[in-house]
């Protein structure tokens, strides 16, 4: 597998500028002749489809939801980072770049991250111009809040619904292009395969989720912006429909899958209550600005929180990390919570929870101020748990939230398959082994609004024109495979439901590939996953037909892919014999229990190559070079 990151020459501050100065352009008359497929309409896909259409390209956009406005970016709560330094607190592009590389535990590509920090400011400008109602100060200027992993206040926010407001901004830009006839929108349509012609990505095969009709679309380039694969764990903060099928199909067509084992576990989620649990709900990281995390000092202390005096409370993050306190990065906070619960300091019925307490903030700021900052989050917490966080501390526990791994891309955001671009969470590029809070929104919009318009043009300017359409045999072959697979899922006619398999898969992953991993655990997981796969294909029950809206059939296809992806995830975690960011191998830790990297052997991206059905995948490597940042042991003490 050829893995050239194609990083432009020059000093890091000049790379993107040089690139834009020299990049080949496509003339307006020629843009009209180019058809672009965009799969996914979240922040990355929505902003890309809108911007490319504005430029004059002919865009076909796809989403599985009934409307482009419902993509899961909408659920992001806390905010979006940018290096505006409006607070005059010492922020800069360099500092945002440095924090992101360090936060990612030095496993991301410097040049990509620097560019991300560079365009972060443009995003805020663009969103404000669209009418996104960011929080403001009384003087009419934009307000900021702090987030984990940073000592500056650089996060812009719209109450606890920043993702919603940014997505509605991108959606409004998209719908404007739909009205103008430049984007053809295909809602309730799922991508089920990628079509390659002469080694280039030239189209996709889709299924209309209402009619069941399988149909192909051809294009000059294909953009995947289909989000992460956190739902492989069954329980996660992702939307129920979020899935990996698009990127998994691309992987099976030859796209490299980078760092599948890098998964983010978010420290502040509402704990699970029972077996019927269908998803976990995040409580924004912004809560850690004012909330204090603690557990009882005594083991198995069953007293209600308000009966535990100060002297019996352990504010363990403040104790262990005095300089960052409750605002340590997510991986550090999650592991600390797990440690506390493993040592029997956990709270709640299951003992799998820690307190997030606002009593001090309410005393300091008044209930009204707290309500203004976090009102909707507190309300959501109360709705789910039946407890009032203004009166009793929240109970929180870590949950699967984000996947740093994804399809490998170069500086152009193009995968190793020519013409296949991957944006947002679906790619691997910017967050290394751990993503900082409020950086996912930044990356999605950077990729879609400000990067792909240049890099796609570069690609198109260098390829010829042809009149390829879906009558090419590559499309009919792919369609045939897609229909065969659907028929085989329906033909199993076993006894167990899709959810049964998905839950069991999730348990295996959470126990062995979750917050802490061991060689033995990962090997066990690989065996168990293989067994589940076999059972799935012999005992699955999918009711109904493929000719209409069949939600069980949709899920079955996605879970079949998740089972395969789970195997790759475990293999990647097994082969990375170090701890870094969210990937914590118990065998590799410092005396204080922090992640211990092995820079000599693992300063690289692991890029997995599909080896064929039944064959082992191949692990390739893209070495990471750090020319601007010195690799250090991450310290938040």
């Amino acid at each position: 597998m050829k893995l050239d990151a194609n990083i432009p020459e020059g000093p890091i501050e000049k790379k993107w500028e040089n690139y834009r100065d020299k990049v080949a352009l496509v003339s307006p008359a020629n843009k009209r002749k180019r058809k672009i497929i965009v799969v996914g309409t979240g922040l990355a896909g929505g902003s890309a489809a809108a911007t490319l259409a504005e430029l004059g390209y002919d865009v076909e956009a796809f989403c599985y939801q009934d409307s482009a406005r419902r993509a899961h970016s909408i659920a992001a709560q806390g905010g979006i980072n940018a290096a505006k330094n409006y607070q005059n607190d010492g922020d800069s592009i360099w500092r945002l770049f440095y924090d992101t590389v360090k936060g990612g535990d030095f496993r991301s590509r410097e040049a990509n991250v620097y560019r991300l920090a560079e365009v972060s400011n443009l995003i805020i400008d663009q969103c404000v111009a669209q009418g996104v109602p960011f929080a403001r100060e009384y003087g009419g200027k934009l307000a900021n809040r702090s987030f984990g992993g940073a000592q500056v206040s650089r996060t812009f926010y719209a109450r606890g619904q920043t993702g919603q407001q940014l997505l509605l901004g991108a959606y409004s830009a998209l719908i404007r292009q739909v009205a103008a006839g430049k984007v053809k929108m295909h809602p309730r349509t799922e991508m089920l395969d990628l079509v390659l012609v002469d080694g280039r990505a030239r189209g996709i095969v889709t299924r209309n989720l209402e009619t069941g009709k399988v149909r192909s679309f051809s294009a000059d380039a294909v953009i995947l912006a289909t989000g992460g694969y956190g739902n492989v764990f069954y329980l996660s903060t992702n939307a129920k429909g979020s899935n990996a099928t698009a990127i998994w199909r691309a992987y099976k067509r030859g796209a490299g899958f980078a760092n599948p084992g890098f998964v983010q576990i978010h420290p502040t989620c509402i704990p699970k209550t029972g077996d019927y649990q269908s998803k976990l709900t995040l409580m924004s990281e912004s809560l850690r600005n004012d909330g204090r995390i603690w557990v009882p000092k005594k083991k198995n202390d069953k007293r209600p929180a308000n009966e535990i005096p100060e002297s019996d409370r352990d504010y363990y993050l403040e104790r262990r990390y005095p300089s960052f306190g409750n605002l340590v990065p997510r991986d550090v906070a999650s592991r600390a919570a797990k440690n506390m619960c493993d040592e029997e300091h956990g709270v709640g019925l299951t003992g799998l929870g820690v307190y997030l307490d606002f009593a001090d903030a309410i005393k300091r700021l008044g209930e009204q101020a707290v309500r203004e900052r976090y009102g909707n989050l507190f309300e959501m917490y109360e709705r789910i748990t039946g407890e009032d966080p203004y009166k009793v501390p929240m109970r929180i526990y870590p949950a699967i939230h984000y996947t740093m791994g994804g399809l490998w891309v170069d500086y152009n955001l193009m995968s190793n398959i020519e013409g296949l671009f991957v944006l947002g969470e679906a790619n691997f590029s910017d967050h290394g082994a751990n993503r900082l809070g409020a950086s996912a929104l930044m990356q999605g919009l950077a990729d879609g609004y400000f990067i792909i318009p240049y890099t796609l043009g570069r690609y198109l300017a260098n390829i010829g024109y042809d009149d390829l359409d879906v009558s090419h045999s590559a499309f009919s072959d792919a369609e045939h495979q897609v229909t065969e697979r659907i028929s085989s899922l329906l033909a199993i006619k076993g006894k167990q439901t899709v959810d049964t398999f998905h839950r069991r898969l999730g348990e295996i992953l959470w126990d062995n590939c979750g917050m802490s991993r061991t060689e033995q655990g990962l090997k066990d997981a690989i065996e168990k996953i293989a067994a589940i796969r076999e059972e799935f294909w012999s005992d699955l029950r999918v009711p109904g037909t493929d000719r209409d809206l069949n939600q069980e059939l949709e899920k079955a296809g996605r879970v079949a892919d998740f089972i395969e992806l789970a195997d790759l995830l475990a293999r990647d975690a097994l082969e990375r014999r170090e701890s870094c960011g969210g990937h914590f191998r118990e065998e590799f830790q410092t005396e204080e229990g922090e992640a211990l990297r092995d820079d000599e052997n693992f300063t690289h991206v692991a890029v997995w190559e599909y080896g064929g059905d039944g064959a082992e995948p191949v692990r390739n490597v893209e070495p990471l070079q750090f020319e601007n940042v010195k690799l250090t042991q991450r310290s938040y003490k």
Partner: protein
Amino acid sequence: MKLKLNIWRQKNREDRGEFVTYHLDDVNSHMSFLEMLDVLNQQLIEKGEQPVAFEHDCREGICGACGLVINGYPHGPEEGTTTCQLHMRHFKDGDEITIEPWRSKAFPVVKDLVVDRSSLDRLMQHGGFVSIRTGSAEDANNTLIPKEKSDLAMDAAECIGCGACVASCPNGAAMLFVSAKVSHFALLPQGQPERKRRAIQMVQAMQDEGFGACTNYRECEAVCPKRISINFIGMLNREFIKASVLSGAEKGGKYRSK
């Protein structure tokens, strides 16, 4: 708890549809309403029956995908709550619950409890945006917006596009939805250049899509999971009237040719 569920079953757009009664035992009060339906569906599949189709996605009350009429109320009896955020602790043992899809001319039923809300997307095409090209924005802090105005715009912008307002309205009006969008932009400096044509064309589009007119029932406000105020409908009416008295050119051109 034990529940008796009367659920609307309809095979497809053409089918007439009917209520079917199901009994569900062992419902846990910590479950969400949709988790209760998940449990029912698992049992139906195991019995060899067809599960109930319903729309859902984020299950955090923000994507706007879910929406069931529960005992006559869109999103159920709890105020300011989406269906996915409604928990079974608000019901009691022995309850009989009727579950229907959104019912409105502009939202045809697709299957069981799933409806087609693409009419809302089409409304948005008539000006539910600020026409600003990527890359042409000035520095964000050059635009001063008083906090009170920005907060009020945010109150409107919180709409999740679920369509409960339409489902609750005896006239099937989409006034709350449209007013939220029109007000959000009318309150902000960014929305001013297109303010008049946006109001006129979104109202016109509403009629063209088959939504009814507003006659102040206020049901929409009562069921809105984001508690969008009908004051915004008042604002929309004022925007529409002010824009309507203008001459042709001042109203601005059309967003769509049709």
